[in-house]
């Protein structure tokens, strides 16, 4: 940890935080961490022309808390995770990867249709952040939401049967790939339009603050909003950054910057591609982290989440990551440079964590293999469950449109339309 001014970056509303961040060196020395390429130690410069491969020439903003910094200085043997944590992280990432691969298989076999957006390669972000949350904390995502739901605890069989459109899915088959919701696990969706979920996440964070201040409950629930680099050019992003910082809402804005918005490169669409810088403009810390490394993400996440829990307000975290597959299963993925894809393939977060765990003797190869086998079986079982589940019946058509079905109104015969027996059969004209 090179920079002594590191701790300052997390003071809220400091106008000078942006300048300080520019002068900081790299976050953690690459040798202790896996998969990351050593970055040039130059100071950040605004007017650089950035080519697709060389765009990461800015320094990473350092982000760790004092506690971690001291631990590192004490002993290089000190690891960031325990064995149990390591296995949990590995299992979660492997579940995400195996699930998405199975989704692709099922799609090409015609078991699911429509738009399916896979998360391969970005597992470190989901695992790194969501595994720190409690059950009451909320997660809001975009259409690339299968793995966020899985990490939060939604059973794989429910997600798979939702994708198959069966009524045992988490949304009874009514949502689909892009709308994963779970009241039990506080997954607030799953939104098809980008940027649409950010205000919803802000609202959930507002409820948390409301509970603390109006209900006087002891509430420290945090909300995480996940979205991509394309969303960071959308008005709703900026409006919510403003409101969250203004009211110090307990929310963390996590940008999964995978450089591509379908076929639009982030560099072609954004005047200033450094998204983390947009945080300090609104008065919150902006942090950039290597999103292919789950341990780095986890460190940043710990700090951001505990900042929100303490009531100090929001944080903007930009995770540099990459998706190995196309934007969706319908995307031919022709625009991306194969060299870029190969480069990121070497930084696969799962292989990296595996290497770290084995090298630091946290677990053996056999234990990891056992985990993989268990996950594979779980996915198989999820597919079987989804296959055997029934499709939704006609009677489900009109349910759930309104929470109070009187909203369909009064029919010509004077009775509410929802009292019509054909309503429950799904054949009523409403």
């Amino acid at each position: 940890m090179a920079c002594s001014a590191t701790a300052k970056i997390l003071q809220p509303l400091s106008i000078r935080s942006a300048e300080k961040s520019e002068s900081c060196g790299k976050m953690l020395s690459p040798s202790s961490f896996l998969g990351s390429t050593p970055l040039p130690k130059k100071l950040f410069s605004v007017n650089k022309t950035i080519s697709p491969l060389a765009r990461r020439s800015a320094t990473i903003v350092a982000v760790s808390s004092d506690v971690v910094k001291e631990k590192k200085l004490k002993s290089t043997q000190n690891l960031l995770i325990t064995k149990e944590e390591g296995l949990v992280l590995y299992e979660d990432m492997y579940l995400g990867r195996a699930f998405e691969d199975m989704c692709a298989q099922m799609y090409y076999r015609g078991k699911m249709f429509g738009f399916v957006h896979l998360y391969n390669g970005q597992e470190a972000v989901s695992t790194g952040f969501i595994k720190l949350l409690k059950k009451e904390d909320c997660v809001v995502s975009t259409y690339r939401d299968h793995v966020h739901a899985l990490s939060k605890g939604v059973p794989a069989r429910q997600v798979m049967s939702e994708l198959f459109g069966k009524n045992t899915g988490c949304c009874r088959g009514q949502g689909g790939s892009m709308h994963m919701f779970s009241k039990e696990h506080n997954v607030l969706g799953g939104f098809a339009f980008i940027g649409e979920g950010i205000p919803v996440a802000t609202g959930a964070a507002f409820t948390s603050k409301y509970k603390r201040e109006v209900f006087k409950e002891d509430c420290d629930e945090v909300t995480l909003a996940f979205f991509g680099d394309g969303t960071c050019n959308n008005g709703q992003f900026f409006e919510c950054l403003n409101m969250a910082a203004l009211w110090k809402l307990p929310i963390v804005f996590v940008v999964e910057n995978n450089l591509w918005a379908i076929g639009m490169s982030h560099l072609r669409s954004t005047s200033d591609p450094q998204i983390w810088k947009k945080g300090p403009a609104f008065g919150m810390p902006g942090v950039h982290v290597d999103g292919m490394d789950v341990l780095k993400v986890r460190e940043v996440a710990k700090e951001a989440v505990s900042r929100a829990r303490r009531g100090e307000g929001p944080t903007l975290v930009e995770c540099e990551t990459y998706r190995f597959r196309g934007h969706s299963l319908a995307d031919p993925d022709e625009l991306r440079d194969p060299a870029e894809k190969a480069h990121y393939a070497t930084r696969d977060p799962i292989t990296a964590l595996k290497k770290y765990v084995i090298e630091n003797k946290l677990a053996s190869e056999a234990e990891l293999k056992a985990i993989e086998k268990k996950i594979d079986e779980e996915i198989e079982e999820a597919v079987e469950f989804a296959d055997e589940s029934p499709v939704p019946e006609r009677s489900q058509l009109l349910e759930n449109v309104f929470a109070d079905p009187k909203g369909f109104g009064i029919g010509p015969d004077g009775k509410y339309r929802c009292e019509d027996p054909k309503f429950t059969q799904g054949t009523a004209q409403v």
Partner: protein
Amino acid sequence: MDRDPRVCVFGEDVGHYGGSYKVTKGLAEKYGDLRVLDTPIAENSFTGMAVGAAMTGLRPIVEGMNMGFLLLAFNQISDNCGMLHYTSGGQFTIPTVIRGPGGVGRQLGAEHSQRLESYFQSIPGIQMVACSTPYNAKGLMKAAIRSENPVVLFEHVLLYNLKERIPDEEYVLSLEEAEMVRPGEHVTILTYSRMRYHVMQAAKTLVNKGYDPEVIDIRSLKPFDLYTIGNSIKKTHRVLIVEECMRTGGIGASLTAAINENFHDYLDAQIVCLSSQDVPTPYAGTLEEWTVVQPPQIVAAVEQLLQNPFVRATPIKGAGLGLGVRVGQKVISNQGGLGWAGGGRGKEGLGGLGWAGGGRVKEGLEKPFLHTAGLDAPHGVHQMYIRPSPMERASPGAPEPRASPAPPEPCLVVSNGRAPEWN
């Protein structure tokens, strides 16, 4: 807000300022800045915030400072408010109320005079209500807050000054029912919001002229209360819809379709719909008056409806000024239908009636053939002039019409594609 601590208000200037029309005056002092939240000017985002808060347990009320501003929040209202209950499989409810002043005011200009009822009406999953009096405003607002469904409550800029004695105690009105304003026998007039007052003013004139209109304030714009409306139609057999919405795709258009589908057999005349012109509301006072329906137009429309059993609301194909037909001349076309050619401009003061309600309003409108039909015609018997079908006309010696009097004067017969022939 007293009864339920989960109720909160989001909007621009709702807190310290008390609301642009002082609807939330005094609430921020009483309940605090967090419960009556002054938001920055970000409609889409604070409406989305309300959705997120509603999903996690609160009951927010969103105020659009002017209803037109909620167009910026259309994404959140349509996708999230309306649809999330369904796409989440019923897991999350969105008990929000979205309200605000809309409608045409006093020379506010085009963008501040919008009527959003027509834009929102197709969104599945929301309910729309329009309040018109202090009594129903209180009742509908309470009902909307307590409802588990997302409700859009339309208020009107010009109605905030109304004063009325209303009960102090709590009362909740039904969100799906219409309100009978004035029972009557001759014609059903369906209206909502500010037009209710124009209709009541016209009703005074009509009563003096001997008519007995039944006035219903539909209140629930989506879904329609077809029971109250249906009962009224079964009694009077004639419908006039008076609304402030635009003509195209407005509430009146939907209501016309719904009534035609459900109560066609009970109608003795075509449904007449008076709506605002499809025109951005002009600033100039005179022009603004002509875009909105005024009481004299309502009176004239009722008179016509009650005199003429068959009133066409749309121009006939082939009938047009280009064929040398004088404006105001009666035309029968073998395509079916009786109407008044051209017209669209009426006399001063009645401007802009257009095709709505019969085409033109000129003095000296000759009473057409069956003026006796209508008021005392037994229900279900159509004593109108029944036009001979094209087959019958083509045969030599066109037969007499089946009903009694023949057209009392020569008319121009226009048929498609051929030169007009004098009858």
